[in-house]
């Protein structure tokens, strides 16, 4: 490669590597913070759900004396019963109790007459997480009791309780353990692409708008180097930061995998060497596109701050396909595989579902994003060659 291009690239890398802010925000944020945050969040959510589902249920009941048989049924189910006195609504509102059950005085009377007897349940449906688990368990306890009593009554009258069940539903869920995991992991394409964008962002801004802001551009342009070479050197430095962040992100995700409670959710996500290889292979060409796009945007800005605003907006671009695919599944087609970002989402999702990725898809994804990336790089060079580059303010 041209020696001058290498000189520019090496200088930009050294220069920016000395900036702690750049290194922290690109490599650290993308590669370390994201996976760690994900592991912590996932464990927290899963742990909370699991604890609640297995924990001994404690029920606050007002009017225990009104329904002795219900209370003993509940106790046989391993539930601890606490007598409750006071205002049920307030206690739930103030979060003193997750839920309160009130058995009215009329209960025993209605029950013995065979009229539906009422049990009141107070809970907050808008409360997050664990409360909903408790609430569901209470309701299923009560309906189980109700069903048992109902069946007994029918049998006493000589009617088979089977008659009540006109239809049986038989579940056939064809999703594999992996494809359930895929739902949880559908954020992964976005995180990887985002890491890539974050990695090259500061370099693009610093090498373009930064050069203008610190007034070093004019002197730089006076060196006997073609502007296209100058830009290629800068672009290569920018791309290399994107790639480093990408590789770091993939590695840290692979390392974080064992700490994700995937088994508890019944998923197996295979991030073996083959799949890691595919990830690298398809995402690396995207670095060219990300860096060129950011460089183009940064050429138009005259200050670091201005460039930062615009380049940050660019982060939403890769978000669109990720979001869309989260809500509407599509059948993969070849043109989709040649569309950058979209193809990456589709292929990564396939990997997460444990499907085989067709080699043609991988080739299409690589060629597609390289092609667009190179066109954008040419546009960046063209823009850098303008005479008005220095005077664009």
């Amino acid at each position, binding site marked *: 490669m041209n020696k001058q291009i290498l000189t520019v690239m090496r*200088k930009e890398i050294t220069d*920016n590597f000395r*900036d702690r802010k750049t290194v922290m925000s690109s490599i650290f944020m993308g590669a370390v913070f994201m996976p760690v945050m994900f592991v912590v969040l996932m464990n927290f959510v899963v742990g909370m759900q699991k604890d609640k589902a297995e924990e001994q249920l404690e029920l606050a009941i007002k009017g225990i004396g009104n329904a002795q048989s219900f209370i003993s049924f509940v106790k046989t189910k391993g539930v601890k019963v606490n007598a409750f006195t006071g205002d049920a609504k307030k206690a739930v509102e103030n979060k003193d109790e997750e839920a309160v059950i009130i058995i009215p005085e009329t209960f025993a009377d209605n029950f013995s007459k065979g009229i539906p007897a009422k049990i009141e349940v107070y809970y907050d449906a808008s409360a997050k997480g664990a409360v909903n688990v408790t609430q569901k368990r209470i309701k299923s306890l009560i309906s189980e009791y109700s069903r048992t009593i109902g069946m007994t009554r029918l049998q006493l009258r000589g009617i088979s309780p089977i008659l009540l069940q006109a239809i049986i539903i038989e579940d056939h869920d064809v999703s594999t353990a992996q494809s359930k995991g895929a739902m949880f992991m559908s954020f992964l394409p976005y995180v990887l692409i985002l890491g890539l964008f974050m990695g090259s962002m500061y370099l693009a801004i610093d090498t373009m708008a930064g050069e203008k802001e*610190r007034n*070093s551009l004019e*002197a730089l342009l*006076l060196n*006997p*180097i*073609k502007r296209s070479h100058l830009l290629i050197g800068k672009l290569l430095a920018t791309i290399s930061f994107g790639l480093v962040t990408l590789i770091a992100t993939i590695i840290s995700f692979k390392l974080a995998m064992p700490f994700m409670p995937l088994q508890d959710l019944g998923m197996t996500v295979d991030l073996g060497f083959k799949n890691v290889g595919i990830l690298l292979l398809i995402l690396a060409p995207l670095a060219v596109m990300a860096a060129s796009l950011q460089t183009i945007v940064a050429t138009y800005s005259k200050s670091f701050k201005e460039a930062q605003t615009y380049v940050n907006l660019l982060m939403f671009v890769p978000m669109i396909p990720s979001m869309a695919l989260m809500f509407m599944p599509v059948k993969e087609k070849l043109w989709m595989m040649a569309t950058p970002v979209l193809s990456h989402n589709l292929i990564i999702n396939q990997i997460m579902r444990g499907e085989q990725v067709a080699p043609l898809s991988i080739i299409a994804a690589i060629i597609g994003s390289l092609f667009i990336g190179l066109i954008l790089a040419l546009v960046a060079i063209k823009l850098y060659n303008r005479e008005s580059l220095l005077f664009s303010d």
Partner: protein
Amino acid sequence: MIEVKTISKSFGEVQAVKGVTFCAPDSQVTALLGANGAGKTTSLRMIYSLITPQSGQVLIDGIDPCKEPEKARSLLGVLPDTRGLYKRLTARENIEYFGKLHGMSDEKIKSRTASLVADLRMEDFIDRKTDGFSQGQRVKVAIARALVHDPQNIILDEPTNGLDVMSTRGVRAFLQKEKERGKCILFSSHVMQEVSAVSDEILVIHDGVVCASGSEQELLNQTGKDNLEDAFVHIVTDGEGHE
């Protein structure tokens, strides 16, 4: 040697330079003297081929920068109007970067930097990161990196702008030394004492044209004044003393 033949340039409706012609020979300091907005910076930018003249021609030691920009630039050392440095690099690294872009070998860069450090008295700060440098230190580094390839032709846009007395003297002494080494030096200024102190030939530029030229004494004789400031005012106002 820098030859300039009727170059002109306009930005939109404004014609900044309207046919500037002059020649700056070797072993001489040539000054472009003009008020703010007279067209000095634009003229210099055309000479060092940052912008292309709409008409006319520039020759640097016989090379046309429009045809061979890289070659022309390697014959030039330019201290532009903007002289920002890379803050996270040391002064030495700033200079080395430009040396490498000029295709110099590591040993050559090292020896040339050593002589520039001595000439410009940069020993105290050459290996410090340039963040927080004083104006004087910054200009010295900017001059050193512009001249790292020891060019035959030196162009400086307002070189002592914002410098204190000691730094100004340092830069002047340096230019004097370069002149004695046979270099062609062209600089722009709006400061009379400066022009008077260092230049052999003065070009008065006003409203985008060179309206008078000669040594300081010649300009004084032409206008019948006894100092350069009065002579300058006389020239740019056609003898009326006001605009």
